[in-house]
């Protein structure tokens, strides 16, 4: 019941939330006995200060764009998909099957196949939670949490019993066929004559992530399905009045969400590891929650928030390297604080800001 200027809602409040989260993080760093400004400098320097760092930042960003979009799409339908972790793991299985099973002549053929497989497997892993929510009202948060754990177990089982080449000790699949190798930043930019370092794992999946952002934006704001999803998310009762089927919206939004999470494997499994590892997701499914919250469930916001978290992740790795007393768990703390301030404690910031603007308007 208020008329806040739009920029307050989409920019100012998230910004204040972020500043609060960073302030508290700074206090933690201070408590550990390091200089927060110095730590900040290392993070920024390490993530943006060199082509090398940027390459890693963008690699992480790619992961977080996928999982962030996954959470965001579900949020639009007021579904809280905590299962990105499991869906991304399963997406990895799909991608691995494609990259191991076919002797691809060229990555341009392998990539679409892997996208389809990753999306299908990811969506498949959200199918049962979605169905149970839609048909039986089983809380999606609980079921997706359960499915994350089931996915971990399934992953170990699959790797140990099916993917692991005989005689190998580590639970990981064989290396993917050479034809499924995605051009890295080094190679791709090399075609344009740009010299980009060899090691960072950023690869053409980054482009796929950007395309996914555009497609999600189109879906949510330009298609009739997106219209229905948003209507359902904003008012379930009104949606039923309009003849929008709750079953259909829950299923569709959760399947799209799962598919997006599964797509993350194209970057991490196919693009980076080039084999299926046991924890290829590394918590990115959860980072997606923070990303979607910060990004206000809008693809552009998700992209920016994913960049922020990519920066934190890469910077965090450098931080650990440079300041041994600040381990990379610092990033997990920052992530928790961002989720706390932008998600759970939103009203703490929003109410005073709202009051301020309402009073200012009244004053005029």
């Amino acid at each position: 019941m208020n008329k806040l200027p739009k920029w307050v809602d989409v920019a100012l409040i998230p910004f204040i939330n972020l500043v609060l989260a960073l302030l508290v993080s700074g206090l933690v760093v201070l408590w550990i006995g390091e200089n927060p400004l110095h730590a900040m400098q290392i993070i920024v320097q390490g993530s943006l200060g060199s082509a090398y760092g940027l390459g890693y930042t963008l690699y992480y960003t790619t992961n977080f764009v996928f999982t962030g979009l996954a959470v965001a799409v579900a949020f639009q339908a007021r579904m809280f998909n905590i299962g990105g972790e499991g869906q991304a793991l399963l997406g990895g299985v799909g991608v691995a099957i494609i990259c191991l099973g076919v002797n691809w002549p060229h990555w341009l053929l392998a990539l679409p196949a892997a996208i389809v497989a990753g999306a299908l497997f990811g969506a498949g892993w959200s199918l049962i939670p979605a169905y149970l929510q839609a048909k039986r009202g089983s809380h999606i948060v609980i079921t997706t949490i359960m499915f994350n754990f089931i996915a971990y177990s399934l992953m170990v089982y699959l790797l140990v019993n099916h993917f692991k080449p005989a005689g190998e000790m580590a639970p990981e699949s064989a290396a993917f066929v050479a034809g499924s190798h995605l051009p890295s930043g080094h190679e791709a930019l090399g075609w344009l004559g740009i010299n980009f370092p060899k090691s960072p794992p950023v690869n053409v999946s980054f482009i796929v992530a950007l395309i996914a952002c555009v497609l999600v934006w189109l879906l949510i704001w330009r298609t009739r399905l997106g219209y229905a999803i948003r209507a359902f998310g904003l008012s379930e009762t009104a949606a039923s009045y309009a003849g929008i089927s709750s079953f259909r919206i829950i299923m569709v939004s959760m399947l799209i969400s799962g598919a997006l999470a599964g797509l993350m494997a194209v970057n991490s499994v196919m693009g980076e590891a080039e084999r299926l590892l046991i924890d290829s997701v590394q918590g990115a499914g959860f980072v997606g929650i923070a990303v979607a919250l910060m990004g206000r469930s809008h693809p552009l916001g998700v992209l920016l928030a994913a960049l922020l978290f990519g920066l934190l992740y890469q910077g965090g790795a450098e931080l650990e390297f440079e300041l041994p007393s600040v381990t990379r768990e610092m990033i997990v703390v920052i992530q928790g604080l961002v989720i706390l301030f932008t998600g759970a404690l939103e009203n703490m910031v929003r109410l005073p800001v709202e009051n301020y603007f309402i009073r200012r308007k009244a004053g005029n």
Partner: protein
Amino acid sequence: MDLLVVVQLLDSMLRLSAPLLFACLAGLYSERAGIFDIGLEGKLLASAFFSAAFAAITGSVWLGMAAGITASVLLALIHGVASITFRGNQLISGVAINFLASGLTALIGQNWFKIGGRTPSLSGDARFLPVDLPFASALADVPIIGPLYSDLISGHTILVYVGLLAVPTTWWILFRTRFGLRLRAVGENPEAVDTGGISVTRLRYQATLICGLLCGLGGAYLATGMAAGFIKDMSAGKGFMALAALIFAKWRPGYALYACLLFGLLEAIAIRYQSIQIAGVGTVPVQFMQALPYILTIIILAGFVGKAIPPRAGGVPYVKER
């Protein structure tokens, strides 16, 4: 299977289900009061770390436990402030708390002890040691009763018994006291409580704090009773499993005990046998055993085996004036 193996398995089940039980009862108080809590995991972890850390520093497991409980209660308070005072999303708050606990424990652990985020190994008074119940050694040689009593029932740390006692106590508090009545009411219909002249906020904070306390005990048990020190992420999903047990138990203390024992038993089996041969079924991989609690919970949630109806006002912030 001979008696010895069974006793061993049950013995192990008791040990393994104790942390689940604490967390499950913790969740029970919170959710019965209408506050969903997926941050049980984080509270367990925080408590595990701080109890081990303080036990290591002070040499006293009791001081350690107090520190663990304090940490867990502080996290519970954050959850309370977010979800009661500021009417935030309880699920998001829970997620945030899990992250905070996971990050802070490793970070502080490394900072304090510089051994990779773990605490030094605890020994002597810095740990909860098994207590022998009266007559345990005297009865040990009596057939059947002997092993059952002196191996299975006796010889656990004090916290295991506290956990078991917490079950009837919780039942009694919920169903036999004024506080319990109000607590259950506030999770079903906070307006009824409010118009009855009782503060919804206060009740919910109380429930959250009890939740913190119990998670604190669970964490202390994890690090100073079951293990001899803290290692990174040692709660390893137990908080979520407790949540599963809570749903499985349909938010009732007695069933909660059974659910936790069942999950503990599954874990005990999974630890001992890397694969299990079942006649007619074939080999059951250990991963299936590990996933079984979650699968069972999904089946319950799906409503195929009885319906788990959560407290009606659960997860919804109490808003009096829009």
